[in-house]
C-alpha cells in the first residue's frame, strides 16, 4: 500500500509560509530573521535528521500496528488517519492526522529482546561491533564544513553513554544535552571576561603558530577544530539558555519532552545536522496500557507540533524524521497488565527527506505475533535511512587506510520507501 503525496516544492512551501506569516500579522515565530535567508538555507540542500527515540520500546500494538478486538489487541481502538486505509492507535490522534507526511514499517524482526543490543542494532545497522551511529554518519557526511553547531546533538534526560562515532572520530560523536541544559563548561570561568578570553585564545594561537612551523598539520588542525567548535557553542550560550516562547510552550507542552522538542526544532532551524530527542519510559512491563496512555499522550501532541513546524518551514523535504525504539513489546499481555520485550514483530514510523510518504511496509499476522510479510531488520532500515539522505550506504567509509562498508553488505534498503 503506497500513496504518493508528492514532494512539496520549495516555492510552494515559501508561499505558504508567507501566507501564514501574513495571516498571523507577522507574529508567527519562525526562529529565523527573514525569508530570503530561510530560502537560502533550504536551497542549500543541507539534509538533516530528526530522531525521536522512544526509549524502552514502545508497543507497536498501542501505536503503529493496532489489532483491536484480537486476543492480544489490548483495550484501545484503531483510528483512521489522513492516509485513506491506514489506521493507527487511538492513542495517537494528532499524529494520525499527519500520517500523510510519514510512513510505517510494520514488519521488523531484529531477533533480540535485549535493550542494549536492540538499541545498538537500530543505531548502527549492525548486530555487533564498533560502528558509528546514524547521527555520527550524518555529522561526517552531511554537516556543512562551516556548520555553527556540532553535527550530532542528543537531547536526553538520562545517561546512556556510548562511543557513538566509533572510527569516525570524536568530532562526530554525539554532543549530549541533558534536557535543555546546555553542555558543560559553556560559561567562561569566573573572573574571566570576554576580552580576557579573546586575549588568552590569541596567545594560544601565537604559541601554536610557532609550534606549527615545519611540522605536519593534520593533528594540530583537528585539535584546533575542537576549540573552534567549543567557541561556537560558547557563543551560542544564550541561545541554549533562552526560555522558549510561551505560545510555543503551550503548543508543545510544558513537560520535558515538549521543551526538548522545542530545542530540537531550534537546533534544526539553525542548521544542526542530526538532532536526536529521547523520550524515556516505554519499558512497560507492568501497566502497559496506562503507561502508553500517558507516554503517548505526551508524545503525540508534541511530536505533531514539531512535525507541523518542520513541514511549514519547508524543512521536511530535507529532514529525515525517525520515530523508533530498540524493539517493540510482546503481544502477550503478562499478569501485571504489562507487555515485555519483543524484537520479533514490531514497527517504526519515518518520513521526510526522500522517504515515500503515506506508505505501509510489511505486515504482521492477525494476532500480531509474527511478521507475515516483507520482514526487515535494523540493517535494512539503516540502508533506507542513509539512502533517503542521499548517502550511498553500499559504499565504504575510508578511514585511515581501512575501508569499512557503511551499511551491512548483507542487507539492502527498503526500496519501496525511497521516493
Amino acid at each position: 500500500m503506497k500513496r504518493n503525496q508528492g514532494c512539496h516544492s520549495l516555492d510552494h512551501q515559501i508561499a505558504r509560509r508567507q501566507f501564514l506569516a501574513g495571516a498571523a500579522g507577522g507574529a508567527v515565530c519562525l526562529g529565523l530573521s527573514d525569508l530570503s535567508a530561510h530560502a537560502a538555507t533550504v536551497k542549500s540542500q543541507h539534509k538533516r535528521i530528526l530522531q525521536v527515540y522512544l526509549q524502552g520500546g514502545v508497543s507497536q500494538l498501542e501505536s503503529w500496528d493496532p489489532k483491536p478486538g484480537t486476543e492480544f489487541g489490548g483495550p484501545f481502538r484503531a483510528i483512521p488517519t489522513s492516509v485513506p486505509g491506514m489506521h493507527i492507535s487511538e492513542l495517537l490522534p494528532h499524529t494520525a492526522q499527519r500520517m500523510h507526511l510519514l510512513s510505517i514499517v510494520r514488519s521488523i524482526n531484529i531477533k533480540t529482546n535485549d535493550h542494549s543490543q536492540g538499541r545498538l542494532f537500530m543505531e548502527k545497522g549492525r548486530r555487533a561491533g564498533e560502528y558509528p551511529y546514524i547521527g555520527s554518519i550524518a555529522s561526517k557526511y552531511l554537516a556543512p564544513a562551516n556548520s555553527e553547531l556540532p553535527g550530532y546533538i542528543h537531547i536526553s534526560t538520562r545517561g546512556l553513554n556510548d562511543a557513538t562515532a566509533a572510527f569516525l572520530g570524536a568530532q562526530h560523536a554525539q554532543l549530549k544535552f541533558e534536557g535543555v541544559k546546555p553542555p558543560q563548561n559553556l560559561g567562561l570561568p569566573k573572573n574571566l571576561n570576554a576580552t580576557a578570553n579573546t586575549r588568552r585564545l590569541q596567545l594560544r594561537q601565537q604559541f601554536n603558530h610557532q609550534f606549527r612551523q615545519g611540522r605536519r598539520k593534520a593533528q594540530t588542525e583537528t585539535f584546533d577544530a575542537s576549540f573552534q567548535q567549543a567557541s561556537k557553542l560558547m557563543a551560542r550560550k544564550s541561545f541554549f539558555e533562552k526560555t522558549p516562547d510561551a505560545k510555543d510552550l503551550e503548543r508543545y507542552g510544558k513537560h520535558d519532552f515538549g521543551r526538548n522538542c522545542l530545542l530540537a526544532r531550534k537546533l534544526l532551524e539553525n542548521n544542526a545536522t542530526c538532532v536526536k530527542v529521547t523520550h524515556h519510559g516505554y519499558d512497560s512491563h507492568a501497566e502497559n496500557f496506562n503507561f502508553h496512555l500517558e507516554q503517548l499522550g505526551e508524545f503525540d501532541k508534541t511530536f505533531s507540533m514539531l512535525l507541523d513546524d518542520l513541514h511549514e518551514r519547508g524543512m521536511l523535504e530535507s529532514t529525515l524524521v525517525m520515530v523508533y525504539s530498540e524493539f517493540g513489546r510482546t503481544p502477550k499481555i503478562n499478569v501485571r497488565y504489562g507487555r515485555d520485550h519483543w524484537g520479533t514483530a514490531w514497527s517504526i514510523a519515518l518520513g521526510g527527506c526522500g522517504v515515500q510518504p503515506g506508505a505501509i511496509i510489511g505486515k504482521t499476522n492477525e494476532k500480531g505475533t509474527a511478521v507475515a510479510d516483507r520482514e526487515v531488520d535494523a540493517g535494512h532500515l539503516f540502508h533506507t535511512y542513509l539512502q533517503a539522505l542521499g548517502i550511498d550506504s553500499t559504499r565504504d567509509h575510508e578511514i585511515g587506510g581501512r575501508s569499512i562498508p557503511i551499511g551491512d553488505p548483507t542487507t539492502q534498503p527498503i526500496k519501496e520507501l525511497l521516493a
Partner: protein
Amino acid sequence: MLVLSGITSTVTAQTSLHQQIDQLIAEGKPQFEQQAAPLADDATFLRRVTLDLTGTIPTADEVRTFVADSSPDKRSQRIDLLLASPEHARRLQYLFDTMLMERRPGKYVKTAEWEEYLRQSFLENRPWDELVHEILTVDGTDKTTRPAARFLLDRELKSEVVTRDLGRIFLGRDLQCAQCHDHPNVNDYLQRHYHGLDAFLSRSYLFKDPKTKQASIGEKAEGQVSFTSVFTKEEGMTAPRVLDLPEIPDPADTKKAYKVKPAKNVRSVPVYSRRLQLADALTSQNNEAFQKNIVNRLWAMMMGQGLVEPLDMWHSDNPPTHPKIVSLLSEELASHEFNLRYVIRELAQTQTYQRSSHVSAETEIPERSAYQMGLLKPLTPEQLAWSMMQATGVTSATLERLQTKQRKVDEKQKTKKAEDPLWQEEALHDALKGNVAAFVRTFGIVGAQTTRFDASADQALFLLNGNTIQAWLAPSGNQLTARLKKLDQPTAIAEELYLSVFSRFPTETELKQVALFLEGGPKPTEQDLQQLIWAALSSDEFRFNH
C-alpha cells in the same frame, strides 16, 4: 662499534639492536640523512622520553639539570633511570589496561585490583608471554590470580566479544567481519580463522556462584564449532586453532569427561580443557602473529604509529612499512624471553626515536612512514592529566604535603618511607587519581585500537572553562602561578613558564612575546599570569609529545 655497557649481556652482536633498526629505516634511501631531521635537542628528548616511559613531563629542575649535564651518554643513562622508576610501571599499567580492557567499566573484577595486578607485573617486568598466559588461563576462583581473569570475565565470556578481541589485541587481526563470512574486503581473514579462535572458548561460560555471587569461568567437556557463511551457505567445522597453525584436536580418550560434572549451581570443570590450550597456542614460538603484534604495539607507543597501521589490521594488502624491522624485533623479543623492557629500551635508543619532529622551513615534510622526522603523539588522557599537574605544580605541592605527613610517621616508626620512590609514586597516585579519572572521562576513547588523534568540543570546553584546570591555576602555595607572581622580570617569568610547561628554555622571540603579553601595567596581574599558563597548557606544543 662498541656495545654500550648498560645493555643486557645477551646482546653480543657487533651491531646493537637499536643500530640495526636505524640502518633498516635508512636502507635503500641514499639521501636519508640529508632529508632527515636532526636528533632532537636535549630538552625535547628529555620531555619526549619522560612522557613515553613514565607518563608525565619532567619538572623544570630536571630539564635544567639534564641540559647542563655534559656526560656523553646522558641519554642512555636517562633511559635506564626512567625504565627503573616506579612511574614506568604505572605508565605501562595505563597503556596495557587501555589496550586489554579498552576502558570497560569493572563488572566482575574490581578495576583497582586489575590495575594493581598489571602494575605489579610491570614492576617485576614479567615476560609478555607469561603475562598473557596467565590472563588467559586463570578461571577467577583463586583469589591471588583472580584479577588476571578480568580479560575474560568482564567480557562475560561472550564469544563474539572475546573472539574478536583475541584476534585484535593478541594477533593484530580484527576478524569481526569473518564471523559470518570470509571478510569482504580482506582476503586473508577467513571465517575459519574466527571460528578457530572461537573454538578455544566456545565451551567456557560465565558462572555465577549463587552463594558468593562471585563470577568465575566454567567449562563444558563437549561442544564443536561449526559455521555457515551467510553469503555462500558453505559450511565449516573447526577444532581450536590459531589462524593457519594446525588444529588442536581433542584427545581421543574420553572415558572420564569431567573433574567436576555440570549440575545446577555448579561450576563444571572438564578433564580436558580447550580453554587451557589457548594460552599455549597463542604464546607458542610458532605463532609469529603474537610476537609481531606486540612489537608493533610497542613501536607505535614509542614512534607514534604502527609499522602496521591500523594496529589490528595485519593482512597481505596492508603489509608492514618495514617488514625487516618487524621480523628483527619479533625475533629479538622471542630470544629475550619476551622482555618488553628490553625492546622499549632499544627503541628509545634509536636515532629514529630521537629525531626532531620539526624540519626547517625549506625542507619538504617527509612521509610519516619514512621516520625521517619524529611524529607527533597526542598525550593519552593519563599523560595529559599528570603533565598538567606537573606543569602547574600540583604534583610537587601534593608530594610535599604527603611527605611532610609521612615524615612524622616515619620518625615514630623509624622508617624512611617518605624518601622511598615507590612509596612516593603510590601516595601521589592515590592522592591525585580523581583528577586523572576526570581526564579519562573527558579524553578517553572507548575501544581504542588506534594511534589516530581526535578532539571534541567537550574536550576543548573542559580545557577552556572546566573547574579542574582553573583550580590548578590559582596561585596557592608554591604552585606555578604563585612562583611566577614572585618574579619581577618578564624574562624570568618566561623562563620559568617555558621550563615548567614546555620543558625547555624560551627563544629570544618567545621572551619578547611573553613580555609583550604582560605589558599591561607595572606588574603583571595575577589574571595575566593565569592566562599565560592556560594558553601554554592548551597549546599544540603541550597537547602532543613531539
